[in-house]
């Protein structure tokens, strides 16, 4: 990989190993970058340090036991992953989910999206070298975690969705608590934006850094905020509505340049849209049962189904093949982080070492999902 430049002073590129213990690789991710001084000539990402064989594990567990495994994929948005799985099973079995359960699911999904984006905001600020955004992001996220704790008992891995509905009804004061939380989150978001978004140094660090054209973004199979930052208005909640997302009014923020700044600002704007959705969901939420008539032992009929949802990180898909048994015959997970990571090599080429952590941060990967 070493390249010698024929100049007066011959220089040799340096191989720099980043990770798996590097603080800015969001877990156990490793990139070997070839640097020419401060510029990145090439990079080689290595994944698999967190591989637990979740897809194979799923084949040996009953459907109910698979749900906790999905919590551990994208551990920053566990509700969204769980939701995708139970939707796949429900679709295969043709189970109708009660209205109230759907609304609770949507509210929790969107809360989880906000929590995930706040964490992104914090870590992204950290990578830019600002120490305070990290705390600001976590303070707002903590309030959401408290709601989750009240709802399902868990803070990170909830195991709350069930085939046919949710585990049990949310606490009686759920609506009040969330409505109380929303203005706080809005305030938190505007604090965050005031702190970082208009900062001249932050703009210099993010504007125009590794832009991604819409064609490239589609070719790489990017999804989620990374795709929308490039100007492609695909949000599965609108483009391929699932659950009850067709009942809500919200906008899809789209970026213009597809650079690091757009990838950041899209997520900030998405928080606003999620707040809108939560507000509508809480208004419309009916009373009633929270779990449909799912059988005690879940045996979907033989067949296959593919379900995808819009997770905070992008297009999360579950391909489920059933042979009629109590366990999945094959369960393939399309992890958005994994697919988005594919573009990293092109994004990093020609950038500075300092930018590499920002670009990686702007992809917002979760290694639990990349490695599965």
């Amino acid at each position: 990989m070493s390249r010698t430049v024929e100049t007066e002073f011959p220089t040799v590129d340096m191989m720099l190993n980043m990770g798996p213990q590097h603080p800015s690789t969001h877990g156990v991710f490793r990139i070997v970058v070839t640097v020419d001084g401060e510029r990145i000539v090439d990079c080689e990402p290595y994944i698999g340090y967190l591989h637990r064989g979740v897809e194979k594990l799923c084949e040996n567990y009953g459907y109910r036991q698979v749900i906790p495994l999905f919590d551990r994929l994208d551990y920053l948005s566990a509700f969204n992953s769980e939701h995708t799985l139970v939707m796949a099973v429900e679709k295969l079995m043709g189970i109708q989910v009660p209205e109230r359960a759907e609304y609770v699911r949507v509210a929790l999904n969107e809360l989880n999206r906000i929590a995930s984006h706040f964490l992104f905001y914090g870590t992204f600020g950290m990578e830019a070298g600002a120490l305070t955004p990290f705390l600001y992001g976590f303070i707002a996220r903590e309030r959401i975690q408290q709601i989750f704790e009240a709802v399902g008992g868990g803070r990170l891995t909830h195991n709350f969705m069930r085939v046919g509905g949710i585990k049990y009804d949310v606490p009686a004061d759920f609506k009040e608590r969330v409505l109380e939380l929303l203005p706080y989150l809005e305030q938190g978001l505007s604090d965050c934006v005031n702190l970082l978004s208009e900062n001249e140094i932050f703009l210099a660090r993010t504007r125009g850094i590794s832009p991604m054209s819409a064609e490239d973004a589609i070719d790489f199979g990017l999804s989620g905020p990374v795709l929308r930052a490039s100007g492609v208005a695909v949000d599965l909640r609108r483009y391929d509505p699932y659950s009850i997302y067709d009942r809500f009014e919200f906008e899809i923020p789209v970026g213009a340049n597809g650079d690091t700044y757009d990838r950041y600002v899209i997520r900030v704007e998405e928080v606003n849209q999620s707040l809108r959705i939560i507000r509508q969901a809480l208004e419309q939420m009916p009373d009633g049962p929270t779990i449909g008539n799912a059988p005690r032992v879940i045996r979907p009929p033989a067949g296959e189904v593919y379900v995808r949802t819009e997770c905070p990180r992008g297009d999360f898909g579950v391909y489920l093949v059933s042979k009629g048994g109590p366990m999945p015959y094959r369960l393939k997970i399309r992890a958005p982080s994994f697919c988005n990571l594919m573009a990293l090599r092109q994004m990093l080429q020609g950038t500075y070492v300092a930018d590499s952590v920002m670009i990686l941060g702007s992809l917002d990967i979760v290694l639990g999902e990349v490695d599965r």
Partner: protein
Amino acid sequence: MDIAGVYLDPVVISIIGVILILSFVLLTVLFLTYLERKVMGHIQMRLGPMRVGFHGALQAPADAIKLLVKEDLIPATADNWVFRFAPYVVFAPVLLVFMAVPFARDWVVANLDLGLFYIVAVPGLAIVGLFMAGWASNNKYALLGAVRCVAQMVSYELPLVIAILGVAMLAESLSLSEIVKKQDVFPFILVQPIAFVIYIVASLAELNRTPFDIPVAESEVIGGPHIEYSGMRWGTFYLAEYGNAFAIAAICATVFLGGWQGPGLHPFVWFMIKTYIIVFLIFWLRATLPRLRVDQLMGFAWKALLPLSFLNLLLTAMFVLYGWLVFAIAIVVSIAAIVLGYAIWRSRQTSRQASFVRPATVLLIEAAGGDGQ
């Protein structure tokens, strides 16, 4: 020399002074680490250290003890001698700087005629130590950090010196005591605001502190030259960093804020108040700002700070030669020039931004458009 009627040999006085300075610097550093954690904690809506002692007041000694008893690891591949020696090369200049700082009227260990020159020149020696650390660690991150460090410190020395020259011209002396005495009517910050800003910015870069903490950026080069150090060797770097921060603030207070001059209180108290205002400013910036990139940092030094410091020098020269009227006119003209220059720069920024965007390809796919992604 007579002190309180007792004759003391100058050598004895210097030794006493050195011991006083050493203990003062060490205690100050201990306090600064605590202060920084408290200040940053409250900016970040948390409490900072609270466990050891009253409101965590003993946290700093506890940390120091922990560092002292920690194992001193030296990597097998490191250049042993250079690796061991580097922290002291970084720390020594800090002490040297304090020798020339007038803490109050006649409270100065060495009243140098070239004091201003000395306090700017001596911290430059620390670069050697940091590069030694980076090189001897035999670690790529350390090397990268060390290279950044040298480039940055050498670049920022220039605007710093030129900014401070304006003060020397006004005071007509390079002696720090003389400069302080000249500020008995008004501090020089009122007539040298540009120099003050340049000095603060450039010295932040000298200190490797946010937003110029590029050589030690933990998210990129994981501490840079310090990466392989542990125990008290690392602690020595830490001492040097905070000692330097205090030195920079003390110099700033001396040169721009009138040093120990002030009504009512004891001169030393005034000096400390002014110094801690600057220290707080440094901590505040650290808690607020993100980090620049290497090339932006260099561009900022050579394209913005250096011309600005030359402009300041020119304005000061006009003031010294022609007096207030011409100075006022020159100030107005140069402010207009700076604003114009900034506007042109911004417009060029945006136009370059626009050309960067490839032809708009916003694909608005209809919801009914099916699966054709």
